[in-house]
């Protein structure tokens, strides 16, 4: 009784806004927004380039911006570590890769700072930015994240490690082994599962017999949380709490963000065989970007004009990046022989 009364009273004064609860300043809200819009616009451009025949292969992050940006934003840039997977465009933008960096990879130009055009696009990495270079085999990065977190703890560094993967990745043995070790050694790692309901065409029901990946955390001795991946602030909030916990010695957390991918798995995929247009349409109605924009406008953080201006700025930057990348040089053939061993 007393509790409900007090709550009512408080709401009578003024309910604290969602972002106040999440401890996000207006500047931070604008940051989140900018990263999300950048990711979406860059993604759309990549697909356009693909259709124009300029990019043989692209991977889409559209739909995942809420959970990617929200989670990555909880890290301290420059000292924490990101261990992303191929869908994490939003993550690596927050971590500091530029649109140009990303496009150099898409165009397979030699200046590609992630891998010198050696890997397919979306296989990012940067020692400088603390983004661990990833491969294509699913879930192999999860033990890397955990071992890295062990090292960080061993060295008494204040850093934490965040590791992203899809719900399909949770079926791999490596995922299990890494979760288990993380729990035993209480290393400062945060696992973020971007559950978009499909692994290419395989629906979640054929991937696992349970509703929530987060429930598996209990089997490893740490906490798991489900969060709405379309709610960037909620993603930030739950991840930030996990980051704080990890940083103060509380060990790992598994966060499952319920999300959806709007495009086919990659530009090589055709999703019409395994899901209906209607299903995709319905998911798009929950798009994290307009939802966040509505919130920002409602709370006077941004205006429609402000959004337009941002879009224009990004479009200009994007055009510049495309132009630069278009003219950047390709690798020379003999580059293929370098970096097998230390030189």
């Amino acid at each position: 009784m007393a509790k409900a009364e007090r709550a009512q009273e408080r709401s009578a004064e003024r309910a604290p806004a969602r972002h106040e609860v999440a401890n996000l300043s207006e500047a931070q809200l604008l940051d989140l927004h900018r990263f999300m819009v950048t990711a979406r616009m860059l993604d759309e451009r990549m697909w356009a380039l693909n259709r124009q025949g300029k990019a043989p292969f692209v991977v889409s992050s559209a739909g995942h911006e809420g959970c990617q940006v929200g989670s990555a934003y909880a890290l301290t840039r420059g000292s924490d570590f990101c261990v992303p997977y191929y869908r994490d465009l939003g993550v690596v933008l927050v971590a500091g890769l530029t649109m140009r960096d990303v496009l150099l990879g898409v165009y397979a130009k030699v200046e590609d700072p992630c891998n010198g055009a050696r890997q397919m696009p979306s296989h990012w990495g940067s020692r400088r930015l603390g983004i661990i270079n990833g491969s294509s085999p699913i879930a192999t990065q999860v033990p890397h994240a955990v071992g890295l977190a062990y090292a960080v703890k061993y060295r008494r560094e204040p850093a934490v490690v965040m590791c992203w993967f899809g719900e399909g990745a949770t079926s791999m043995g490596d995922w299990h082994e890494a979760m288990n070790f993380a729990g035993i050694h209480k290393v400062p790692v945060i696992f973020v599962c971007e559950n978009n309901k499909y692994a290419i065409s395989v629906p979640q029901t054929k991937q696992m017999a349970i509703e929530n990946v987060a429930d598996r955390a209990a089997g490893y001795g740490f906490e798991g949380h489900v969060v709405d991946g379309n709610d960037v602030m909620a993603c930030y909030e739950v991840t930030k709490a996990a980051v704080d916990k990890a940083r103060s010695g509380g060990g790992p957390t598994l966060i499952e963000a319920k999300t959806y991918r709007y495009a086919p798995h990659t530009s090589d995929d055709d999703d019409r065989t395994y899901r209906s247009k209607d299903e995709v349409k319905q998911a798009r109605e929950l798009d994290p970007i307009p939802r966040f924009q509505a919130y920002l406008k409602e709370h006077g953080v941004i205006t429609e004009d402000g959004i337009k201006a941002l879009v224009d700025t990004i479009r200009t930057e994007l055009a510049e990046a495309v132009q630069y990348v278009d003219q950047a040089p390709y690798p020379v053939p003999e580059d293929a022989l370098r970096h097998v061993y230390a030189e």
Partner: protein
Amino acid sequence: MAKKSLIKSIHDTMWDLMAGDERVLIMGEDVGTRGGVFRATEGFVDKFGEERVIDAPLAESSIVGHGIGMALGGLLPILEIQFADFIHPAFNQIVQEAARLRYRSNGDFTCPIVIRAPYGAGVHGGLYHSQSVEAFFAHVPGLKIVMPSTPYDAKGLLRSALYDPDPVLYFEHKKCYRMITGEVPDEDYEIPIGKAEIKREGDALTVIAYGLMLHHCLAAAERLSQEEGREAEVLDPRSVAPMDWPAIFQSVTKTSKAMIVYEDNRTLGVGAEISARIGEELFYDLEAPVVRIGGPDVPGTPYSKVLEDFFLPTPDQIYAQMLELARY
């Protein structure tokens, strides 16, 4: 008889095998509604149902491990590994379990599984969608490794693989899937595993190759004939385990010169064993050193077209070396 691509031949053969024998089932990632990422199982789930066309969870070790269990239960599973690059998590199940079940049980148990996987470069797949993995497994007694290079062979070998009482790895060069077409009879037939085929007869030198490189070699041999009037004998082993040593030795004895072309990393690729055996067994027959052309010893095929082209042996390189060896 119909003209089919390599992938269509594989698709249709599996279809017939499924239709003809209830013990056959297919398991792999995206083999169901998606019909496989290369469409090898297009339409299968509608026809044969979800129980026989299993969209596996993302877990290669257990795709093979569960397949072994199914075989123990009297079924004949065809297991698809989406890309040969992703067979490595299943290495333990293949090498320690499938390959050894018969031997370790002194013949009491058998393991009749087929593992299919697309391999090979040339499709801008980068380091993890381009690998050749046959050498790892050719080193493992107990396994058979089939490398079909034509639509005709693909059909006959797949049927043999399915009914082989031992585990068979069946590797399909993904660049050949649509590039290579050929006549395929409608009726069922088997091609025995372990029998090479002379894909082109000649006396100037013997060239041994499979997969994409076989087709490059055939093109180079044609050019050698056209431009130089010399005939290369092109031998397709069709399986690299067992390897048809008698056929290889017979051809090299005839031509006195041997060349092996493969796209896998050169060191300890399948060509190493071929070169070694020819050198050891035909010491007095060889008129020139064995020539081995392989991919460079780098950790993978880079994504960039420039770099990938550098990685893969080209028809021109092959031609140049053929010519040199023929003239030797």
